[in-house]
């Protein structure tokens, strides 16, 4: 029997990059095929080609042995290919039913929506695949895990046989991931085939039948979980041996550097984002903030750096109340910030690296004299930092926008770390970076900690939080549910808290005594 899907020699280039270079891929019916690769390896591009969002420069697609031209998502849907996008494609103000049937509506009297019939079909799907859902709920009212279910139902509604899931676990708690894996197995039992895109090795080992590894737009290997190990996969993915563990010594916490008391912050829409939050960060320690994205992390960081006003509560940095201070004032006190969106909040992309490196010091000696900037000093500073922080660039005056993500992040780290700082907020410091850059940033963060800096690490990657932190605070809907010791905290316990469930003391004991899981990037 022909494989359910076969890609032959898919090539796609964007200006300046060869995103896919003659990629071959074969998926058998009833198989969970993991597509493993680093951020930027070309996984998503490949799947967007398969789904008709991009047109390939070269290559052929065969579905059930038939050669197909997939020019748009319509063609893909017709061929039985469906995709759960990394960022959900749901209309928040529509109901579940409306979202599911959009584009494939059930109608009566010509054009009138038949919501009842569609809801019935959704019920049927949800029974067959054990996907619990309320068809009449508005998408904006349901949690992220359930929204993902809606995305899956959307595909099943269209009777897709090949389901592409692009980083489906990125927004889920560990328990929701378990749930998702169950759903995936149910779908396999019903005869579907699944392409599972991820950069998380642990997941691949757990769920995949077949693994294809992509690096730099090329297929570098094909294997199965039985034939390979985590370290094999990691080095295949990165192209060299990697150390998955972060080397760090026991922390030596000193005095309190940051103290947050009953902080309350509204998001720009006026909803309460931070609700009576209190915590401390000591010098020489990393406090990790764990939580599912959108539980107030962004607003917390913005409030601490002076970008968002607090409506209530106090923030003390080195004993000084700063909640009403401007970002510059806070920076001058010795606070540094690695923002979650480096391109939007971290850099001026059109400016040269040299200028980006003095964005928060340009008005001070030696870069500025009275009203003039000292271009020589700025250039000299740029050259030194490019050297010291290993920023890979043709020249220090290249614009920041033309650097790779990892190097852009290094520019920010160089800027923030080259001043004397006592407090560092690092928000999603490694999001979207390659493994090499991740290792580098992690090393630098731990180094700062050991120099006596207080570090607040905000990340939605639970593994990262668990690896780097000395203490872990779990946030849920703008509150800290618990602060755990990183040495004893388990993934299960944090996962429960991330879902808003506070375990009893007894349960805590049970979860805490379990052996620590292998932690992976």
């Amino acid at each position, binding site marked *: 029997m022909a494989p359910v899907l076969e890609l032959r020699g898919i090539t796609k280039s964007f200006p300046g990059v060869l995103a896919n270079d003659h990629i071959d891929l074969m998926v058998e019916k009833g198989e969970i095929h993991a597509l493993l690769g680093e951020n930027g390896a070309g996984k998503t591009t490949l799947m967007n080609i398969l*789904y008709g*969002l*991009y047109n390939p420069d070269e290559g052929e697609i065969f579905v059930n042995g038939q050669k197909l031209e997939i020019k*748009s*998502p*319509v063609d893909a*849907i017709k061929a039985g290919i469906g*995709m759960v*996008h990394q960022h959900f*494609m*749901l*209309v*928040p*103000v*529509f109901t579940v039913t*409306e*979202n599911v049937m*959009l*584009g*494939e*509506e059930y*109608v009566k009297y010509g*054009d*009138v*929506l038949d919501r009842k019939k569609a809801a019935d079909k959704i019920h049927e799907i949800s029974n067959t695949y054990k996907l619990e859902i309320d068809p009449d709920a508005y998408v904006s009212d349901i949690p992220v895990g359930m929204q993902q279910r809606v995305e899956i139902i*959307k595909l099943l509604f269209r009777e897709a046989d090949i389901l592409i899931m692009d980083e489906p676990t990125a927004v889920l708690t560990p*328990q929701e991931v378990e749930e998702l894996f169950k759903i995936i197995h149910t779908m396999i039992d019903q005869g579907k085939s699944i392409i599972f895109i991820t950069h998380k090795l642990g997941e691949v080992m757990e769920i995949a039948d077949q693994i294809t590894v992509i690096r730099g737009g090329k297929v570098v290997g094909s294997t199965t979980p039985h034939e390979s190990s985590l370290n094999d996969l990691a080095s295949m993915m990165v192209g060299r041996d990697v150390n998955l563990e972060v080397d760090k010594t026991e922390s030596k916490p000193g005095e309190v550097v940051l103290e947050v008391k009953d902080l*309350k912050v509204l998001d720009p829409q*006026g*909803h*309460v984002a931070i*609700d009576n939050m209190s915590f401390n960060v000591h010098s020489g320690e990393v406090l990790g903030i764990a939580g599912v994205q959108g539980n107030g992390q962004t607003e917390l960081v913005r409030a601490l750096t002076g970008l968002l006003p607090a409506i209530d509560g106090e923030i003390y940095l080195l004993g000084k109340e700063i909640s009403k201070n401007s970002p510059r004032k806070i920076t001058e006190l010795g606070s540094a910030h690695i923002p979650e969106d480096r391109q939007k909040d971290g850099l001026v992309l059109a400016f040269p690296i040299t200028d980006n490196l003095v964005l928060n010091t340009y008005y001070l000696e030696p870069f500025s004299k009275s009203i003039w900037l000292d271009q020589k000093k700025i250039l000299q500073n740029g050259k030194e930092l490019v050297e010291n922080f290993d920023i890979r660039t043709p020249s220090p005056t290249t614009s920041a926008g033309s650097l790779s993500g990892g190097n852009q992040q290094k520019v920010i780290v160089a800027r923030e770390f080259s001043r004397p700082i006592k407090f560092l907020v690092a928000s999603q410091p490694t999001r979207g970076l390659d493994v090499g850059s991740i290792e580098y940033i992690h090393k630098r963060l731990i180094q700062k900690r050991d120099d006596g800096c207080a570090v607040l690490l905000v990340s939605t990657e639970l593994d990262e939080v668990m690896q780097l932190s000395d203490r872990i605070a779990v946030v*849920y*809907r*703008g*509150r800290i*549910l618990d602060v755990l010791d990183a040495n004893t905290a388990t993934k*299960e316990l944090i996962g*429960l808290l991330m879902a*808003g*469930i*506070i*375990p*009893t003391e*007894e*349960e805590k004991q049970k979860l805490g005594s379990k052996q620590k899981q292998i932690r992976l990037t």
Partner: protein
Amino acid sequence: MSTQTETKTIQISKGILKLERRKRIIMGAVFLVAALFIWLMFVSDLDPGVETRFVMTPGGASAEAPDWVFPTSVYLNIIAGISAMLGAYQIIRGFGKRTYSILALVAIMFIFSFLAWATAGGSTNLAGLLRIMVVRAVPLTLGAMSGILCERAGIINIAIEGMMLTAAFVSTVFASLSGSLIVGLLAGVISGGIMGLIHGFLCIKYKINQIISGTVINIFATGITSYLSSKYIQKVDYQYLNEPGMFPQINVPILSKIPFIGPILFSHNMFVFAMFIFVALLTFLLFKTRWGLRLRSVGEHPKAADTLGINVFKTQYMAVILGGMMAGFGGTYFSLGSSGRFDEVMTAGRGFIGLAAMIFGNWHPVGAMGAGFLFGFFDSLSVRASLLQVNLPSEFLGMAPYLATIIILAGVIGRGHAPAAEGEPYEKE
């Protein structure tokens, strides 16, 4: 694993609940203030024995209704009492989903109180006032629906004014030349559609900022129509170009004979009826059909629509063209439905007020019509301000609805639910 043991799931954050409660209390306070205002400003100002006389038959109408005479302060006390009770209930329990309907009710009661107070000791033609209100609401509502069509598909349309003005001009010339109102009407609608297409071309194909594109169209329309008007159709030699005639009044059989309601609702030219039909039709199409679901999905999340095989650009073009045609239809009201000729800048900002009606009506045709009625009422009232017993500058009355809009939008409702992707040109990557 966690479900067997007793665990505590944290429900919606208390903070959000608090915010909801604050909103509820503010709304209740608004009702209470309305009641207090009636007592303090109106009732305390009145002689207890004074009466209000509302004439219930508009001038020239055939269906007669007797005048409505009532003791002013008694009625106002009752209204204020009801308003205060509604306010108290809103603060304590809240009306939930019906809050906005109750707000509308209180607003109507308040306006009625104002009118009764201002008329006390004399008489006002209430029926006439309401009849004019309906007429004045027509261009506002049609303009608002043009905006709804475009914005629900994600394209901001502030060019309604220019589209209307163009259509008013084109319809005048075509109707005058052909001697047929229908030809004029069609020409006006088509010209609106073409303006919509231009707007779409600039916004969708060339991704020009939608506000700028709209402004350009407005300035262009004002300029070209004013030039052609002053150069040609206002001149005596070209008078034949500016005599389009007007759509006649239609008295709907039986319905127009109903006292009070008949003359207000069922004795108009076809534009008023068309407004009601379009409001109903657009509501149905937007919220009950496949066409509407797809249109709205494009305005909310174009990428999602695209991945489901909906052609975003095609949908947006269709929406702006239809929106332009709707504005064009509204524009012909000025020439063929209201004055029977073309005058320079005769739309006088009605397109922009239509836009305000759209926002006030929360991008919903029925809401927009309600806002159109509200604005139309004050418009109608300001014309007759001199006839009232109290001395209020008509400018103040003209200002009142917009002031109310600002207060209500800013203080009570907050930012309405604009389509999420509006104003952002869609990029296919």
